């Protein structure tokens, strides 16, 4: 017993020291200003009103001097306000909730696999093992075309899936925000693996009869991190076009991408990717500052494509039998870790409080000058953010990030539960996770959210949002009917 107590009291002491240090450094300016103001006020009170008036009279203000000074002040103020980047608001967003008839329980997936892959029991066995350890639940959904034995991936079926998911999410968004399609000035749709002509953005414009001068963009091939890329693009466009609404749609169309071969490195996406879509309404209008849910603070994009290994780690190609699939290399997690490190190196100075940055600086200098053996200091990002949305790419990704960023179970709960309920919905998963946090009633005004997404390339993109108003638990949305049963315990291996 006694051995534990000193350790405990040591760690408690350390905790308080750390807290004191953080408070001191983060509020340095305030702490400096208070004594100065105190001294000044004391001085003023001591001097008395007559003396103050005397001092003012002795300054001999000239009319021209006054005019020039005020003109100067107005000029500086104008330049400041003009050059400040516009605030980008996320007015609201909507996630697609799959219909009940798209549900695929594990047992159905496995039975279909066995029937489709009769000649390759080893592939089926492998898929079963992936599914058992995947962290997915029994309610994830696949599009109707993939329910057939064998799947029926025609272009028409892919378009139907796109229409189902995108129009559902958009209808929901229009209803929530009261915006009409004709009000949309910028439209960005991102879908990595399905890129028909005319594009999906053209499909949206056609369905909703948008204006002829709408600025539409269609991003394809950019992987699971394309959602953040679309937000970044919307932000840049909203800097240039005043008083506009930008609609961003992030989705992944599963129908054309069911892998029908046997390469192990290509079987993973079949087991993990599921239907999903999210539609976001961004704006730079002042009028939206009241009702907007979030403000966009930062977007940091990191691309490791210059490195050959990173470039090839998620690669779409044909297998020896001619089946097209996306192959994932074994060093995926290592590359993801490195991409994350790059990203947070840029992100750190933008978001971390001064205390963390100083510590990091000191440790860095210390390692360089004094002793290279010092452990590198991992800044505590939990001080910069209240909520984390880690792309639900798979259990391994979430585990890895939880370890690297030293996050608690509650921080990654949104990611894990989204993976369980919806599977890997690619670029829209970040929004399902946000929705989870809101549905749990945890999103308060002033909370900062960090969305991290990884994607082929290899890219690590992150977005930082600040909650604009405390969000009441929504009565609609993808989690409305099941949020009460979450969080669930997800066993390491599910027995099928």
């Amino acid at each position: 017993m006694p051995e534990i107590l000193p350790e405990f009291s040591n760690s408690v002491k350390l905790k308080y020291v750390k807290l004191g240090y953080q408070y001191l450094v983060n509020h340095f300016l305030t702490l400096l200003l208070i004594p100065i103001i105190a001294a000044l006020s004391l001085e003023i009170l001591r001097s008395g009103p007559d003396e103050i008036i005397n001092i003012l009279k002795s300054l001999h203000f000239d009319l021209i001097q006054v005019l020039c000074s005020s003109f100067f002040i107005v000029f500086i103020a104008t330049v400041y306000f003009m050059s400040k980047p516009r605030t980008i608001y996320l007015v609201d967003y909507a996630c697609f909730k799959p219909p009940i008839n798209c549900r695929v329980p594990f047992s159905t997936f496995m039975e279909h696999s066995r029937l489709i892959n009769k000649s390759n029991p080893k592939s089926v066995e492998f898929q079963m093992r992936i599914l058992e350890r995947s962290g997915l639940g029994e309610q994830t959904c696949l599009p109707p075309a993939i329910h057939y034995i064998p799947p029926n991936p025609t272009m028409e079926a892919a378009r139907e899936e796109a229409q189902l998911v995108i129009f559902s999410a958009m209808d929901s968004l229009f209803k929530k925000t009261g915006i009409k399609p004709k009000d949309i000035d910028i439209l960005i749709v991102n879908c990595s693996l399905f890129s028909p002509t005319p594009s999906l953005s053209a499909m949206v414009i056609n369905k909703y009869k948008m204006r002829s001068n709408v600025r539409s963009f269609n991003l394809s091939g950019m992987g699971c991190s394309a959602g953040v890329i679309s937000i970044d693009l919307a932000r840049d466009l909203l800097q240039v076009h005043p008083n506009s609404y930008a609609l961003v749609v992030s989705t992944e169309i599963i129908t054309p991408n069911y892998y029908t071969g046997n390469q192990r490195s290509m079987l993973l996406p079949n087991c993990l990717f599921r239907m999903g879509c999210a539609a976001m309404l961004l704006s730079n209008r002042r009028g939206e500052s009241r009702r907007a849910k979030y403000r966009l603070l930062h977007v940091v994009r990191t691309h490791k494509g210059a490195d050959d290994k990173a470039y090839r780690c998620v690669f779409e190609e044909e297998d020896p039998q001619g089946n097209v699939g996306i192959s994932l290399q074994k060093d995926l997690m290592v590359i993801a870790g490195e991409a994350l490190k790059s990203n947070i190196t840029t992100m750190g100075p933008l978001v971390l409080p001064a205390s963390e940055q100083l510590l990091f600086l000191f440790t860095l200098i210390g390692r360089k000058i004094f002793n290279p053996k010092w452990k590198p200091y991992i800044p505590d990002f939990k001080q910069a953010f209240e909520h984390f949305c880690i792309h639900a790419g798979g259990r391994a990704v979430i585990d890895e990030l939880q370890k690297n960023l030293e996050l608690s179970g509650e921080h990654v709960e949104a990611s894990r539960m989204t993976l369980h309920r919806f599977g890997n919905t690619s670029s829209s998963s970040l929004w399902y996770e946000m929705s989870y946090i809101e549905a749990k009633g945890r999103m308060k005004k002033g909370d900062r959210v960090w969305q991290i997404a990884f994607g082929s390339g290899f890219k690590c993109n992150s977005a930082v949002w600040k909650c604009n108003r405390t969000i009441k638990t929504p009565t609609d949305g993808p989690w409305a009917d099941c949020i009460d049963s979450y969080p669930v315990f997800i066993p390491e291996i599910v027995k099928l």
Partner: protein
Amino acid sequence: MVSVGEENLIYGIKLSSVGPARVTSPDVVHEPTSMDLAMKLHYLRGVYYYRSQAVQGLTIKKIKETMFTWLNRYYMANGRFRRSESGRPFVKCNDCGTRMIEAQCVKTLDQWLEMMEDRHSLHKLLVSDQVLGPEIAFSPLVLIQLTWFKCGGMSVGLSWAHVLGDAFSASDYINMWGQVLAGHDPNPVPDFANSPKQVEKSINPAPAAIDPLSVKRVDPVGDHWIYPNNYRLETFSFHITGKQLTQLQSKVSGQNHTDQVPSFESLCAIIWKCMAQNSEGSEPKTVTLCKNNPHGLKDKILSNNQTISVVKAEMSIVGAKLKELAALLVDQAITENNHIEEAVERDGGLSDFIVYGSNLTFVNWEEATFYGLEIKGQEPILVNYTIDGIGDNGVVLVLPGPKNSGETGSEERIVTVILPENRLLQLKSELKRECMFA
């Protein structure tokens, strides 16, 4: 057994699965009763025919949506069989689902029904003939085939493993889908908390007793649950109008209206005698009767609840009067349900039995609510059911006929006979002689 030329009638076959919309709690199982296990080698194959007016505008999307809602109630029919440590089969309710088959037919509904009059084997094209096994863990218990005819009409083919329940349960099951299609939602939330979890039954080896007469213990079939027939079985079906039925009853019971033999036993007596006529010395002396038990098990949604009784005749069937035979059927039937359950439990449910066809079996489905599956308020114009996996002594099924037969107040019957080929031909000619059908 599809003959040449029949393969091209059905095309565009697409397989998929439908299952319950709600997640069944893990570890929920369904334990078949002894009666269920006695019936496990039998399969019901029913086909419901609808005119195009009933199914106009009914898309496959709407069908699947309603099915997912409907199957919430029948989660046990969507599981898969496993064997417990003792080898006794049970159903793991893992939401694997019901197999769905979509198909198109080159003929119109009327053309098809006309063709069916001569070739009953066409029935097999509209309903799946899959059985449980050889891998029971991956075999669906229920398969539904939807076939669209050239004219827009549709047939619904229900393939049902008898181990889940009898025809009355199957009928209730599929009729509920009609209810959900119509927009009703009579789904009580399944109470998973009270669902039986795995329970090991202890085996009490009873002293070697005699098996009941109505069942036959067959050689072990392992995990491929179908009885291997020694003869090729053929099916033959004919309608009996209400008027004909009354005439037949009079023929059997005499003109005295006070103690009329019920219609079912009258039909059985006539057919029994016809069967005996041409059997050349090996008359069927023992017959099995299967009837609905109106006092159903209230807490079970699906069950094998038929009363199975056996009738043993001492005298010669050929020489007997119809009235005598009918009296035998009505009065001397010995119920064997308990005896069957004992026989099954003797080795813990591991043996394999057949009930239908172990003797000449007469099945009374007159009260079955086959015509209760309404689509858009319309009843099917015809419902046909057969049983697969029956024994070589054959089966006679008495089904209700379509209601819109034009005659008010009386009800039509459909009699389906499944027998080995040669005996069926003989029976057909004999029945024709008796003017049972035109």
